[in-house]
C-alpha cells in the first residue's frame, strides 16, 4: 500500500502533472507563441517540435563561460530559476488536477516563485563578466521593481476580493458568484501588463534588446546553461498564464473534470494569444518610457483599483 502510494507520488512528480508534462506544455506554449508571432508577421513559423529541438541542440553544445566567471554560481542561477518555475507550475497544475492541496498563503508563494527567475536573471548577468551582460543586468534590475510591484498589486485584487490568500480560496470565491474577469477587468489588464514585464516580452524586453544588448544578461551563456534559462523562461510563461487564468477565470469550469481541463487550456491559449499579439504590435519601450508608464500610470491605477475593491 505504501509502495503504491509512493509510486503514485513519483509518477505525479515526474510525469503528470510534474516534470515531463510541465516541460512539454511549456514547450508547447512557447511553440504556440512563436507560431502566432510568425503568422502575425506574415511568416510561416517553426514546426511543433522546434522548442524541443532547440533545447536538445543546446544541451549537445559546448558550454563555455568567460574567464573570471564563478562556474558554480553560473550553473546554480539557471538551475534555481528552472526549479522555482517548475515548482510554481507544479503547484498550479497540481491544484487543478487535485494532486496537490492548496494551502493558505500559497498565492504569495506562487508570486514569489514566478518572480524569482527575474531577479536571478539580473544576477546571471552580473556573474558572467561581459559588458553586455552587466548592462543588461542593470537594466533588468531597474525594470524589476516597476513591473513586479504592478503585477503583485494588480493580481492581489483577486485575493483581497475573495478574502483568501490561497489558490483554492480565490477559485472557490469565484465559482460561488461571477469570475473576477467581469468585475476586475482593469486588474486583469494591469496584471497582463505586469506579466509581460516579468516575462521580458516585447514591449518590455529592454534587458535583452537584441539591437542594443545582444542577449542581455544571457549573452555569455551557452550550451546546457542557456538551455536551462530557456526552460525556466518557458515555464515562467506557463505558470504566469496559469496563475492569471486561476485568479480571473475561476468558476468558469468545474474542478477535476475533463471539460474543466479543456476550458482551462483554452483560456490559457487565449491569454497566450493576447501576449503574442501585444508583442507583435508594439515597439520596444525605452527604459525611461517604461518607468514613466509603470510608475506614473499603471501602478497608481492598480492602487486605486485595489482601494475600490477593499471599499466595495
Amino acid at each position: 500500500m505504501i509502495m503504491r502510494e509512493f509510486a503514485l507520488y513519483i509518477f505525479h512528480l515526474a510525469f503528470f502533472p510534474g516534470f515531463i508534462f510541465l516541460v512539454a506544455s511549456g514547450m508547447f506554449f512557447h511553440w504556440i507563441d512563436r507560431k502566432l508571432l510568425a503568422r502575425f508577421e506574415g511568416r510561416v513559423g517553426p514546426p511543433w517540435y522546434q522548442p524541443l529541438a532547440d533545447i536538445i541542440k543546446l544541451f549537445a553544445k559546448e558550454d563555455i563561460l568567460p574567464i573570471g566567471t564563478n562556474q558554480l554560481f553560473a550553473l546554480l542561477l539557471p538551475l534555481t530559476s528552472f526549479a522555482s518555475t517548475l515548482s510554481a507550475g507544479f503547484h498550479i497544475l497540481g491544484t487543478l488536477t487535485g494532486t496537490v492541496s492548496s494551502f493558505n498563503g500559497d498565492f504569495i508563494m506562487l508570486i514569489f516563485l514566478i518572480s524569482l527567475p527575474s531577479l536571478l536573471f539580473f544576477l546571471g548577468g552580473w556573474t558572467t563578466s561581459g559588458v553586455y551582460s552587466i548592462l543588461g543586468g542593470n537594466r533588468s534590475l531597474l525594470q524589476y521593481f516597476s513591473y513586479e510591484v504592478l503585477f503583485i498589486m494588480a493580481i492581489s485584487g483577486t485575493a483581497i476580493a475573495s478574502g483568501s490568500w490561497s489558490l483554492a480560496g480565490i477559485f472557490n470565491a469565484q465559482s460561488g458568484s461571477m469570475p473576477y474577469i467581469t468585475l476586475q477587468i482593469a486588474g486583469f489588464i494591469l496584471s497582463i501588463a505586469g506579466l509581460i514585464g516579468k516575462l521580458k516580452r516585447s514591449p518590455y524586453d529592454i534587458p535583452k534588446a537584441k539591437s542594443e544588448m545582444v542577449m542581455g544578461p544571457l549573452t555569455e551563456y551557452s550550451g546546457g546553461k542557456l538551455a536551462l534559462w530557456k526552460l525556466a523562461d518557458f515555464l515562467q510563461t506557463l505558470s504566469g498564464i496559469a496563475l492569471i487564468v486561476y485568479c480571473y477565470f475561476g468558476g468558469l469550469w468545474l474542478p477535476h473534470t475533463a471539460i474543466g481541463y479543456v476550458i482551462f487550456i483554452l483560456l490559457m491559449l487565449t491569454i497566450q494569444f493576447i501576449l503574442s499579439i501585444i508583442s507583435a504590435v508594439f515597439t520596444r519601450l525605452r527604459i525611461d518610457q517604461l518607468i514613466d508608464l509603470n510608475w506614473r500610470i499603471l501602478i497608481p491605477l492598480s492602487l486605486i483599483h485595489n482601494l475600490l475593491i477593499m471599499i466595495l
Partner: protein
Amino acid sequence: MSRVTIPIGPQHPLLKEPVSFNITLEGENVIDSTLRLGYVHRGIEKLAESRSYVKNITLFERVCGICSHIHTTTYCQAVEGLLGLEIPRRGSYIRMLLCELERIHSHLLWLGVLAKNIGLNTVFMYAWRDREIVLDLMEEISGGRVSHAINTIGGVRKDLSSTQAKKILADLPVLAARVRELLDIVNNDRSFKARTQGIGYLSTQDVYRYCVVGPVARASGVGVDLRRDAPYAHYHEFDINVITMQEGDVWARAIVRILETIESIDLSRQIVEKLPAGDVTVRANRKVPEGEFVSRSEAPRGEVIYFVKSDGTQTPKRVKVRTPTLTALITLPMQLEGLQMADVSAVIAGVDLCIACADR
C-alpha cells in the same frame, strides 16, 4: 556613476555591415562615441586602375550590395562622358527604371532595419515582404535580384519586353498600396513615434556644415535631389517631387524615405508608360580619349560622385568614388551625444549606413 564603454561592432546584431562604434556610457546616457571604418575595404579604386573600362563595370557593381545599379550607372555615365557618347533614349529609360526600383528596394530594406532595431519585428517582416515584389521585378528585368549586370558603356545590355512592362505596371499599384499601409503605421503608431521622434536631431546648419546629402538632408529641410537639381540620364523629362521635412529626427527620415518610395513607384510607372522605342545601346570605343570627367547621380542614400581620369588607353588612370554614407557617418557622434543607449540603435539605423560603399 561609473563609465562603461560598450563596443558595438564590428559584429553586432544592430549592424548589418561591419563597422565599429565604441560608445561610452554613464548609466544609460551616451557620453562619447568613436567610430572605426575599414572592415570591408577591398581596394576597389586601386583595382580599377588595372582593369579595362568594360571589366570595371563588373567591379563597381560590387561596391555595394544594395545600390549596385547606381554605381555602375554613375561609372558608365562618366566613361560615356569621356567618350562623348549619347546613349539611346530607350536605354537611358531602362537605366532610370532600374535606378528607381533600386531606390524602392533600398528604402524598404532600410525601413525594415529601423523597425527591427527599435523592436518592431512586425514592420520589419512586412517591409521585407513587400520588398520582394520589387526584387522580383528587378530579377524579371535584368536576371539579378541585387546585382543586375545590366549597364554597359553605351547603354544597357537587356531590352524590356512588352510582357515585362505589363507585369511591372500590374505589380506597382500593389506595392504602392502596401507602402501606403507602412506609411500609415509610421505616421500613426504611437509606440513607433515614441521611439523615433526627437532623436538623432540634425539641424539645417549641420547639414550644410557636414555636406550631408540624401534623405537625411531632406529630413532636415534641405531639399537636395540631383534628379531635379542636376538631371542626369533623362530625368529632366519627368517632374520630380522632392520631399522635405523640417523635423530632422529619425522619424522624419522614415517619413521622407517612405514618401520617396511612393514617389519612386509613381516615377517607375511613368517611365514604363513613356518608354520610347528604339535601340538600347550604342557601340562604344574600347580606347577612351584622354581627359577627366565627373559624373554625379542620386543614389538611394544621396549623391554619388565618380571621378574618372583617362590617359588614352583601355584602362582608366584613376577612378575616385565618393559615396553619400561617409557624410552621414561623420555626423553620427554628434547625433548620438546625450542620447540614451536604447536610442543608439535607432539613430545608427536612421542614417542608413552603407559601409561597403563607404569602405570600398
